[in-house]
């Protein structure tokens, strides 16, 4: 039998279009327009899953995104997703879902024994496992980790596409219920740009499920017309199936649009979801309200649901969730649902906490043969996998206790209504302040911070008539405030059979004496937090609302307490005998509802994950099988293996080629900054530690850049191109930082200095050729006189190279005779290829960053960021020679007289040679005073760079060593992770060509 709970007529599902789906391996049929929840209820499936902690049988509580119970594992394979609210999933052909948190099955679940062991799992039990005895934690942890979490994450790569979108609008309206629609209409008619967001597939909200009239005519027809008009307005954009997730400062909102989640077939081009980043001049919140559960013993059984959910299943989906129904309420409005159920053939009994009942409602109940128990409460429920009986008892309000005979009612569905909570989550995220409204027993918006309006039941206003006109006018007013023209106001007269008035919700909260032992009064369904847990937390001292939340976990999980928060607070208020306002509420944070990480990542995945910066010669490196290294976002050749060389063999070959003949390096990634202006030299004098005034045109100079604390933060060679024109180079990773640094000082400190700084990093391809044959090699390819006399070391010349206009800098990072050839990027690859072709006779060898590092280490040249770490001065690096004693001022100068920078026992830059001439010390190793069996050992320093030197035939290392200069020639020990202790001798940092003859050739 299929769809046995479907009413004969009614609902908005398309009964012509059956849809096949599978739940827990069994096939069912639903209809187009169903949610997974409505289709399951239609097929008389009430047991949906097991609860988190106690593995209790759970069904469907609500009909919306606030659902705490009916969360399922949706989809299979790579597309499987845990924790999906069955109440939100639109049914599609072939849908597959299964219960969570149960094994081996939802019907027979071993974990359900937790329910009987609940005494050992009280609130905070997880934290208690930390406490005592300490050694037990490792034992507990094993089981806790296994039990933690709900559902299964997919293990395969996510096959779907997620897009993002930036959007600007005049007004964003969150919520497409009656208030949101009318606000959109008011603003839309005024002509301003409106974005209307609603999380449902259909606009209309609450009014889709209830009968009402406008101007004494059918309200549903009127609603349809309003939506049609909005659809026709070009300035109004409507996003359905879109949930506003975050509300940040200055009306910046994020929203998640489900684009194809509900499609049968996944699209190759359309995204599954789209993540919107919205900036809005004004925001109107019209999110409505959530119905509040009532707290009673075993209020969590399948078959117990919110009255409004029952209403929705019946009127929207044509599903009658039960035939013998009990409505448990503390307000008038829920009686509408009782009437609706009777009309559709159910037998209804009402248990009302109040003693007085509106005469009109009393009359109608009599007419419909509805028995009403006044001043009664449901005190317990029964039924293994679905409710089948309840106990009720009279409430003595004065004594706050139960009295009289316990009566039994047999039932298959309990509808409960404890009043309504405005959905204040986004309002609160936007820093809006809440106040507790005693009339309707809930928090309502109080003080607005952002440029925002909040309307309708979202603002605690539940009366239809009031909402109609106020919402429309709010839309007009918002447009007006943005200087759009006013439009005519409209007066609608709206009526519901039972009007919502503020006085008819009774503050009915569970009293202390109503907690009956041996049963659980659930406050938070998803996290299995009971009233007893709240009591316990208070007894154990967790009386701040934030502490109670964390101790008991109430308000956590996928629903973030949408159904539980207010009841928890009310109970705390009751326990402490304090107004709820004084208890306060926890902080609401984004996201409003669970959201996929994929949508936040958007298209920044796979090859688009992060930019790969490439030089103009990059493709040549790829074609010639370079192994690449990431340097910031750049890809730089690490080494160029030939045949089956490993890194050591390749680097050895590359190093020797440079030392003996000719090597070539792509140095294009170096930062380059063009400096021009009459004060350029003065500026350089301030930025660098050394003197620049006397640098001749055509000359190059190395400079160290320090911050105000005197610590090295970048280095490079700057050349004087013309009278007031300099070309600065920076480290690859430091380029952007240096550029900002220069601009910061020009724009905030030295406003009168006439200097323009312009980044030209990518303008130039830089081909660095190095080795004793580099002059001979280059002579054939350029019109520049390369003779030692005309073009000595540390000079710059302009001319042509391979027919391309070029700048050549005679500078060296290898210690060999070197030329850095700069050509416009577009010619980079051409010139490189010409070099390779022409260089064959010198066995020209392309080399990568590893060889560059080895060669410079042999020469003791520092790498900022490797040998330095932001805490070393030039003096620490033995570079006092580069710090001017004469200059009046420069960045860092004042710090060189501080007691801390002048003390002698600072770590100094030294060389280290291992005594065994074999071991390559791992970079980062500690140098200790005395090697002990285990730490702690007194540390003297650490290794900053360490390589095997092919030129020398043994390993070399650079290190920072306490008082290192006076330790020259001394022995130190370096304990390794593998337990070995290596002895080394402290040396000078220059291992090769100490006189610096080779680069001066």
């Amino acid at each position, binding site marked *: 039998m299929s769809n046995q709970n479907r009413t004969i007529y009614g609902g908005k599902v398309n009964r012509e279009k059956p849809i096949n789906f599978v739940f827990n391996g069994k096939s069912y049929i639903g209809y187009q327009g169903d949610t997974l929840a409505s289709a399951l209820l239609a097929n008389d499936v009430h047991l949906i899953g097991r609860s988190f902690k106690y593995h209790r049988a759970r069904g469907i509580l609500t009909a919306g995104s606030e659902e705490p119970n009916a969360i399922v594992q949706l989809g299979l394979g790579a597309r499987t997703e845990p924790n999906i609210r069955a109440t939100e999933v639109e049914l599609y052909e072939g849908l597959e879902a299964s219960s969570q948190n149960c094994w081996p099955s939802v019907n027979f679940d071993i974990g359900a024994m937790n329910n009987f062991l609940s005494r050992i799992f009280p609130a905070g039990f997880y934290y208690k496992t930390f406490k005592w005895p300490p050694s037990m934690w490792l034992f507990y942890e094993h089981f806790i980790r296994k039990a933690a979490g709900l559902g299964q994450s997919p293990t395969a790569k996510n096959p779907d596409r997620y897009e993002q979108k930036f959007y600007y609008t005049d007004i964003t309206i969150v919520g497409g219920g009656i208030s949101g629609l009318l606000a959109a209409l008011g603003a839309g008619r005024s002509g301003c740009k409106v974005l209307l967001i609603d999380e449902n597939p259909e606009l209309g909200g609450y009014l889709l499920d209830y009968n009402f009239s406008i101007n004494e005519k059918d309200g549903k027809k009127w609603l349809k017309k309003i939506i049609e008009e909005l659809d026709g307005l070009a300035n109004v954009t409507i996003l359905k199936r879109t949930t506003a997730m975050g509300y940040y400062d200055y009306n910046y909102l994020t929203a998640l649009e489900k684009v194809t989640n509900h499609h049968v077939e996944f699209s190759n081009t359309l995204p599954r979801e789209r993540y919107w980043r919205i900036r809005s001049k004004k925001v109107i919140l019209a999110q409505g309200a959530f119905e509040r559960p009532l707290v009673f013993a075993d209020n969590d059984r399948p078959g117990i649901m919110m009255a409004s959910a029952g209403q929705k299943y019946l009127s929207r989906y044509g599903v009658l969730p039960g035939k013998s129904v009990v409505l448990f309420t503390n307000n008038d409005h829920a009686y509408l649902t009782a009437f609706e159920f009777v009309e559709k053939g159910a037998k209804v009994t009402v248990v009302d906490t109040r003693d007085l009942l509106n005469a009109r409602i009393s009359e109608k109940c009599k007419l419909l043969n509805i028995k009403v128990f006044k001043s009664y409460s449901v005190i317990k429920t029964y039924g293994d996998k679905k409710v089948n009986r309840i106990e009720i008892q009279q409430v003595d309000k004065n004594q706050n206790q139960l009295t009289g005979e316990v009566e039994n009612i047999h039932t298959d569905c309990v509808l409960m209504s404890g009043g309504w909570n405005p959905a204040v989550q986004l309002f609160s995220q936007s820093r809006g302040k809440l106040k507790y409204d005693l009339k309707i027993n809930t928090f309502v918006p109080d003080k607005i911070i952002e440029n925002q309006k909040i309307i309708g039941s979202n603002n605690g206003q539940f009366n239809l008539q009031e909402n109609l006109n106020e919402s429309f006018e709010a839309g007009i007013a918002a447009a007006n405030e943005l200087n759009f023209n006013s439009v005519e106001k409209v007066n609608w007269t709206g009526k519901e059979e039972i009007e919502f008035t503020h006085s008819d919700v009774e503050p009915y909260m569970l009293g202390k004496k109503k907690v009956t032992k041996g049963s659980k009064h659930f406050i938070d369904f998803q996290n299995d937090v009971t009233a007893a847990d709240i009591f316990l937390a208070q007894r154990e001292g967790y009386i701040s609302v934030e502490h109670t939340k964390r101790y008991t976990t109430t308000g956590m999980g996928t629903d973030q307490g949408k159904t539980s928060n207010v009841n928890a607070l009310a109970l705390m208020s009751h326990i402490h005998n304090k107004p709820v306002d004084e208890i306060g509420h926890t902080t609401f944070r984004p996201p409003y509802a669970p959201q996929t990480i994929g949508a936040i990542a958007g298209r*920044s995945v796979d090859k688009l994950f992060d930019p790969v910066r490439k030089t103009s010669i990059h493709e040549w490196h790829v074609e010639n099988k370079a192994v690449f290294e990431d340097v910031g976002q750049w890809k730089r050749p690490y080494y160029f293996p030939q045949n089956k060389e490993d890194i050591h063999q390749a680097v050895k070959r590359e190093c020797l080629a440079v030392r003996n003949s000719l090597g070539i390096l792509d140095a294009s990634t170096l930062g380059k900054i063009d400096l021009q202006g009459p004060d350029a030299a003065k500026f350089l004098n301030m930025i660098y530690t050394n003197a620049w005034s006397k640098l001749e045109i055509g000359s190059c100079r190395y400079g160290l850049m320090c911050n105000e604390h005197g610590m090295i933060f970048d280095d490079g060679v700057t050349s004087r191109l013309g009278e007031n024109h300099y070309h600065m180079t920076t480290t690859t990773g430091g380029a952007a930082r240096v550029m900002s640094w220069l601009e910061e000082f020009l724009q905030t400190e030295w406003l009168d200095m006439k200097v323009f700084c312009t980044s030209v990093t990518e303008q130039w391809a830089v081909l660095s050729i190095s080795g004793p044959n580099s002059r001979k090699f280059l002579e054939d390819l350029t019109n520049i006189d390369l003779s030692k006399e005309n073009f000595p070391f540390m000079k710059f010349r302009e001319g042509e190279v391979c027919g391309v206009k070029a700048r050549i800098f005679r500078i060296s990072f290898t210690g060999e005779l070197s030329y850095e050839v700069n050509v416009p990027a577009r010619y980079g690859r051409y010139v490189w290829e010409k070099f390779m072709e022409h260089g064959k006779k010198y066995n020209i060898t392309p080399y990568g960053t590893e060889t560059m590092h080895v060669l410079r280490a042999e020469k003791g040249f520092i790498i900022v960021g490797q040998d330095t770490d932001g805490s070393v001065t030039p003096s620490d690096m033995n570079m006092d020679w580069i710090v001017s004693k004469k200059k009046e001022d420069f960045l860092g100068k004042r710090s060189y007289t501080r007691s801390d920078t002048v003390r002698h026992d600072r770590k100094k830059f030294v060389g280290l040679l291992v005594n065994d001439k074999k071991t390559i010390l791992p970079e980062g190793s500690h140098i200790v005073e005395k090697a002990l069996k285990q730490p702690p050992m007194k540390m003297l320093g650490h290794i900053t760079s360490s390589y095997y030197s092919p030129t020398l035939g043994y390993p070399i290392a650079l290190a920072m060593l306490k008082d290192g200069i006076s330790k020259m020639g001394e022995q130190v020990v370096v304990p390794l992770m593998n337990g070995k202790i290596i002895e080394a001798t402290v040396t000078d940092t220059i291992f090769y060509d100490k006189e610096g003859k080779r680069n001066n050739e």
Partner: protein
Amino acid sequence: MSNQPQFFSPLTQKEKIASDNISLELIDFLGKINVRLKEDDVQARDAVEKYLTYSLPKSAGEVTGNNETRVLWLGPNEYLLLSEDEKKDNVINGLREILSDLFCAIIDVSDYYLTMRLSGPKSIEVLTKACPLNFDQYLTKGNSCAQSYISKATVLIDRLSDDLVFDISVRWSFADYLWDWLADSSNEFIFSEK
């Protein structure tokens, strides 16, 4: 290989997109000249304007020009002058000459940026996927420009006409990434035609 120096651009190997909704193509090398002069330096400004025969842009996002050159406002003291590639050396030398005694900087950045052209009715939809600019406020008509970012690359966007034609300049090293990004984002609009 001829003896004439060969150009190379990482985008020449990219497959261009041409559809009714969206097109993406590479723009050949242009002369791109970074011009720095103080906004309130009337003398320098006058000299440049006289040389160009038209006014420099005065406010953020403005673009001025004639048949030969085009000037984009980049910042209070910074402009980008576009010319034909072959003529850029003339322009650079011409400007340096007339400004020789004045505080300014004329810098060839023709290879610093690579430029791609995004056009078609869906181009703003493609851009707003990853560019945080408000297209209701900026780049609303031809001859306007703006600097922003697209995903993780900083860009200079030049709207050439009231039609939806955008020249997007990006630093050379990011060009490959940006092209791939734009091509990927254009995907849904190419296929939706079929």
